[in-house]
């Protein structure tokens, strides 16, 4: 008579899943609505007016 293998657990218990919102980090708000290229141009003009 063959020895019966002990009944194995079909799968390891799964970790409870974290809700998606809790895992996700709040990313910074995108660049200013003024637009970075517009801001860069304004800064360039101010530096240019000073001769830089």
């Amino acid at each position, binding site marked *: 008579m063959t020895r019966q293998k002990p009944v194995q657990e079909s799968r390891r218990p799964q970790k409870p899943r974290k809700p998606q919102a809790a895992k*996700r*980090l*709040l*990313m*910074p*708000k*995108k*660049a*200013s*609505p*003024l637009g*970075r290229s*517009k*801001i*860069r*141009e*304004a*800064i*360039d*003009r*101010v*530096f240019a*007016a000073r001769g830089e």
Partner: protein
Amino acid sequence: MAAQAIFRKSVFINCPFDHDFQPLFRATIFTVHYAGFLARSALEVNDSSQTRLLTIFQLVAACRYGIHDLSRTELDRTSGLPRFNMPLELGIFLGCKQFGDRRQQQKRVLVLDVEPHRYQKFISDIAGQDIVAHNNDPKLAIRQTRDWLRVSYQQRDLPGGERIWQAFSEFQRDLPQICAELQLTPAELTFVDYRDIVILWQQRQDPTRTVERL
């Protein structure tokens, strides 16, 4: 930028948003970026569909560093009541550090107040944290913020507070003209506008700086 990198660079600035405090707020934002970090504030979130407290929770969780200014705890002139938002947000930040996961336990906190040891009269439980005074002086706030960031991040090549103050003074000289080019006044700038102007101005001064791709 990846979320983990954002976390490592993000500095939550918990301070009053009133007009009187603006010079200190703007000096702190400038210093945070000068030191290579990213200033974050509840003002960057403009979503009326979620409560302010939820916004604060999310923002606190997204920031490794927190600068908490408790200098406006005096009684409000009209209501006669103290303002508790800043101490509450400091408490949320400390709670997140204490009970959060491994990432949250890396949090670092700087508490600013007007005078040294004044906090002991109204929030003595925080003794033992880094608590420094700025005397309502933007120059001192710059130095305190810079010194704390340098120690927290072990940035050896960060210029001193005097050099950052000088750069901030130059920036303040340029700001009205930059705003005029954008058909705005400095008072009209939102937090996100101001932060972008700081980032791009500092990069114009020193082209070796990298501009965060948000």
